């Protein structure tokens, strides 16, 4: 097994040993398919011993729903399909921020509360978006679901020539598979087993393991989806890659960000806010 797969399996097993009630987020995208497959490979019998959560915004592509149901059946998943019905009535995709907030964020909060999850496992990667560079394999969230990796030092703590910030989370010794899993005052923990993977790693794994994959990723009439979100906010990219090998070849030469097809305003606002330090 490749070292980078070994690390993912270690994280998954460490998580299983550390937390009582883990939920796995499953968007049906390529990353979450790899994550589920890695979980299956981490435990005897090839089962996923966690509840699998699909946040249904009501605005996904029909192919996403079909693929979700097919995988749930094929891999015998204990799946929760969660919809924030109230929030869906109040919002429309014309207002993407409000729509996302109600149909994804609030929806997730409700699932976490309802099922009392103490940890959530996600298929995010560092190379996916630069703001994820700071993420850790095990990452605490407070009761408002926020992550505070640093806090400003108090006047008493400040020393001349030293940083003005206190890092709230220890460095992870991931090369030795040593992770901090206990966090005081954490509401729940986010676990990111494929944090170190690249987009090409994901596609190579999908190819080598012959994993089922959403057909939207493959080009039709010169367009394909590189990242899957909700239908109104996700646009296809120009591409003729209709096989996994062609996708890998395209990624090796193509410029542009993986999430370039996603709603640009929201991405740009978040980027700007983060660049300035507002969040």
């Amino acid at each position, binding site marked *: 097994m490749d070292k980078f797969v070994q690390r993912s399996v270690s994280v998954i097993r460490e998580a299983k040993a550390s937390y009582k009630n883990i939920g796995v987020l499953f968007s049906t995208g390529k990353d979450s398919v790899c994550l589920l497959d890695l979980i299956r490979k981490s435990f005897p019998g090839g089962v996923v011993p966690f509840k699998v959560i699909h946040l249904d915004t009501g605005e996904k592509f029909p192919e996403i729903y079909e693929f979700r149901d097919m995988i749930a059946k094929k891999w015998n998943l204990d799946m929760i399909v969660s919809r924030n019905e109230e929030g869906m009535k109040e919002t429309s995709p014309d207002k993407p921020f409000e729509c996302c*907030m109600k149909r994804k964020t609030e929806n997730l909060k409700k699932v976490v509360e309802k099922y009392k999850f103490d940890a959530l496992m996600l298929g995010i990667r560092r190379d996916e978006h630069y703001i994820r560079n700071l993420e850790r394999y095990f990452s605490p969230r407070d009761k408002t679901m*926020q992550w505070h990796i640093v806090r400003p030092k108090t006047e008493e703590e400040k020393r001349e020539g030293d940083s003005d910030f206190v890092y709230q989370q220890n460095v992870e010794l991931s090369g030795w598979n040593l992770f901090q899993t206990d966090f005081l005052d954490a509401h729940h923990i986010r676990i990111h087993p494929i944090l170190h993977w690249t987009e090409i790693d994901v596609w190579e794994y999908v190819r080598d393991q012959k994993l089922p994959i959403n057909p939207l990723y493959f080009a039709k009439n010169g367009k394909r989806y590189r990242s899957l979100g909700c239908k109104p906010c996700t646009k296809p990219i120009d591409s003729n890659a209709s096989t996994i090998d062609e996708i890998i070849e395209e990624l090796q030469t193509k410029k542009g960000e993986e999430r370039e097809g996603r709603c640009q*305003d929201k991405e740009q*606002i978040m980027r*700007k806010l983060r*660049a*300035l*330090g*507002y969040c």
Partner: protein
Amino acid sequence: MFLVLGIDAATWKVIKPNLEVLPNFRKLLDTCESGTIHLKEKPYSPPLWCGMFCGKGSEEHKHREYVVDGEVQTREDISVEFIWDVLDKRGYDIRALNVPFVVSPYNFNVEFEGIGFGLPTDEKEWNEELEKITEKIVELLKEGPDVLIAVFTSLDRIQHFHWGEPVVVEWYKKMDKRLGEILFETGFMDKEGNKLIIISDHGFCSFGEAKVQTLPKITKSGIEMKGDHHEDAILITKNVGYRIKRPQDVFNALEKEFR
């Protein structure tokens, strides 16, 4: 007409020692009432602009940050009525332009796209904001609404990045010129009965002097912060009967005026 002009982060610390090169501020100080609002709460922009136009403190409106739980906050996340909601229901023509309690800034009955999503961060965007907002205000003043609220945000970022440098005064001079175009060249100040509030959400001071740290000393994009927010905000008023002592009183002044 009642005009409320917000200037994010405007401070007497820069204006008063430089009145010689800020002729429109000088004219305003000569002809209007002016004072300082000493904030009782921490000088963070989102709750202050929010409170100013909903009349409630942050304990009540509960809006404290631009981003909560990784999601950009919007008007819909704040469960309060703003002055534009109240006066609109009462049948008044009220417009709001670029009010930065959320990102992108909020507009009411105005079509406008905040420059740099309301976070102008370089010289080009700062100039563009000053120009576009001024143009829009002048256009709206011609339409003659009962109330116009408009906010400039550039000075905040300029002072964060350049506090203590001569360039800050240069940007106040540009702001001063725009005030001249809006208030004097349009004839707004000459028209009897027109009412005016010019207000900042907070003042400014050097990074080390500030009691709050609103942004990290070095941002993720590598920009060093030289200044941060101070509790003393500016206030200039003309023909406003209500005594404004705190940001929420702007709501009260407007609400009382249009009962």
